[in-house]
């Protein structure tokens, strides 16, 4: 009896010791600034989750190697605690709670996807923990009045705005006829709202407005309508499966449309999976390596792409680039705040105005980045069937001329 009591008290002593040591493992330990992130390492977002994590890790390594973060005359290094949110919003919210209240994290990095960011934002807001996120573009994130949420990327409603404007411009300023198909998730529906705005602004008409299911793998019905009604622009957004399904079926059904605009082309590895069939597709992208933005950590986009490839053995998608940018923003804010006080860091973040290799970053009161336009690239193939993404709009960064209208299938 006595022995078991002794044993029990021994165990509880250890438990108490352990728990206190966990609690003291807070925002800044020794010379380390600890950031927390819930990332989708398993589940349906796991490939993009890994892109996000790789982006974060590359930036942490680079910033630490180049002298770390200087606050109050002392140098600190970044460290990140990761948890796997299993691509599940509920789990992500739990993990955010755990990172903050159990692990004592006071600065957060965002998860992958708008849905998960939406799940985490109320938690970070409740605890007043600044979160810089790089992968939640849904407009609804920025209309809730969150004070501690900062996104380095342009909101979803701007993704394909440029495409419509370009189409109108090429049509001599007259409105165009738009066919659109969007998946029913927060992100794609925001892209849709953006198109509706653009259509209204330019006097364009929407003649097909289809919604795609989550389990999408057949959009033949939409494409049959497109064939019949012959719109000027076809817009499709449904993450990678939307992009892959659209290209496959457009090629199989030989659907001729003067302009095809999509999202998630690089994540879907369109040019690799579909080769020449994906030719001429226009894709919205947050970033492209050929853009001429610069910073002292990564140099240019080209240099970033090279370093990334060397470390992770694949070309960085924009999801990685924007994730790396999030850490540059944090570093800059810490140094300007010259403090680890959450409120001060938050104010410093709100006042961010900088250029990174990924683009200019300046936050609107809602938290979205307003200083970085989206770019459009077009898949272009050479005679041997090798395809490449070339930036075609905005004109300032264009590395190739937009091919418009898309040649008919019978002429290819």
């Amino acid at each position, binding site marked *: 009896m006595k022995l078991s009591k002794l044993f029990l008290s021994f165990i509880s002593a250890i438990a108490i010791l352990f728990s206190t040591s966990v609690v003291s493992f807070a925002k800044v330990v020794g010379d380390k600034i600890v950031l927390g992130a819930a990332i989708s390492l398993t589940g349906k977002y796991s490939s993009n989750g890994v892109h996000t994590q790789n982006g974060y890790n590359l930036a942490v390594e680079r910033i630490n190697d180049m002298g770390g973060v200087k606050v109050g005359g002392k140098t600190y290094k970044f460290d990140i605690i990761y948890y796997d949110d299993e691509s599940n919003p509920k789990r992500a919210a739990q993990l955010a709670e755990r990172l903050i209240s159990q692990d004592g994290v006071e600065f957060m990095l965002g998860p992958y996807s708008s849905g998960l960011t939406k799940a985490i934002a109320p938690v970070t807001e409740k605890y007043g923990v600044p979160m810089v996120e790089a992968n939640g573009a849904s407009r609804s994130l920025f209309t809730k009045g969150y004070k501690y949420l900062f996104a380095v990327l342009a909101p979803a409603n701007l993704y394909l705005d440029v495409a419509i404007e370009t189409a109108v411009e090429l049509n001599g300023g007259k409105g165009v006829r738009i066919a659109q198909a969007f998946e*029913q998730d927060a992100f794609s529906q925001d892209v849709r709202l953006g198109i509706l705005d653009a259509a209204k602004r330019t006097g364009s008409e929407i003649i097909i407005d289809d919604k795609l299911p989550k389990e999408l*793998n057949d959009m033949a019905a939409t494409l*049959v309508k497109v064939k019949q009604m012959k719109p000027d622009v076809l817009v499709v957004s449904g993450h990678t499966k939307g992009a892959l399904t659209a290209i496959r079926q457009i090629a*199989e059904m030989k659907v001729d449309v003067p302009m095809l605009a999509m999202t998630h082309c690089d994540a879907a590895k369109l040019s690799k999976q579909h080769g020449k069939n994906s030719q001429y597709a226009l894709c919205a992208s947050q970033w492209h390596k050929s853009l001429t933005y610069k910073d002292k950590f990564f140099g240019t986009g080209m240099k970033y792409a090279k370093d990334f490839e060397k470390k992770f053995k694949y070309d960085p998608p924009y999801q990685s680039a924007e994730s790396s940018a999030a850490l540059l923003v944090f570093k800059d804010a810490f140094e300007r705040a010259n403090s680890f006080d959450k409120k001060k860091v938050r104010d410093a973040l709100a006042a961010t105005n900088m250029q990174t290799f990924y683009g200019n970053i300046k936050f609107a009161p809602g938290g979205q980045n307003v200083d970085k336009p989206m770019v459009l690239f077009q898949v272009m193939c050479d005679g041997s069937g090798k395809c490449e993404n070339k930036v075609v709009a905005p004109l300032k960064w264009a590395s190739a001329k937009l091919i418009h209208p898309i040649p008919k299938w019978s002429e290819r």
Partner: protein
Amino acid sequence: MDFMVFQYPMITIQACLDGILLGVLFALIAYGMALQWGVMNIINIAQGDLVILGGYIAYFMYLYGIHPAWGVIVSPIIMYFVGVGIYKLVINKVVDRDLFISILATFGISILFMQLMNFAFGADVVLANSGYGTTFLFDSNVVLPNSKIFSAFVSIVFAICLVIYMKKSKLGRAIRATAQNARAAKILGVDTEKVYAATFGINAALCGVAGALISITFTIHPYMGLPYTIRSFMIVIVAGLGNLPGVALSGMGLGVFEEFADYILGTEFRIGSVFLLLVLILVYRRFKLSRKREYLK
């Protein structure tokens, strides 16, 4: 609601043909389900996941430079052994328990398969390009991708082969005998354990064929199995067990129904309409059944 599909005859024809080609493929999956449901009284929730796994086999062949159409030969062979393996590990422990236990067990297998496939193959949506081109009908107003025609053709060939095999071969007869009365078959010297394993293997092999065809025609993804399970479940419910022409017909019916739902209600309700139809059919069947019982009283 959009009734465009009825206003243009060409679209109506297109929807019907698309539906029938798709339905034949569904029927193949459903036939596997009907077979093992009839023989072992097990509703296999993991049916769709077996399909997707079969699809990945074809996809990997494609990645290694082999034409994915060969997947319809290779994938069923591999999947047969996967099926027998699952039977030996899990199903033989639940085969004579009640239906609820087997549903739980196969549900568990389904989750396990999803996660394993996600782990092994990644969460990317993938597809295999067959390069089969397109057939144009009616002055190119109706377009049919040859890959869809190919999958319907292969499905029919496999279904016919299976029917002949069930009729003529020793194992086929043993399977049918076990389905009719497992105890009597056992007394007469049929090794029912072996029959069960083979049945589950054949079901998995059919899923393998269907999966390979889906990777050629559509896209595959670790979490895309469930809609295929639901569709085959529904086809079997409508057709009844052991009714092959019924399975084929209700498969095609479902395909056409889905296409029309897609045009009329919109693509977002495509899968939803299948679920709704399933509920309606179950309610109708229950209604019919209860009437019958009263009559018998």
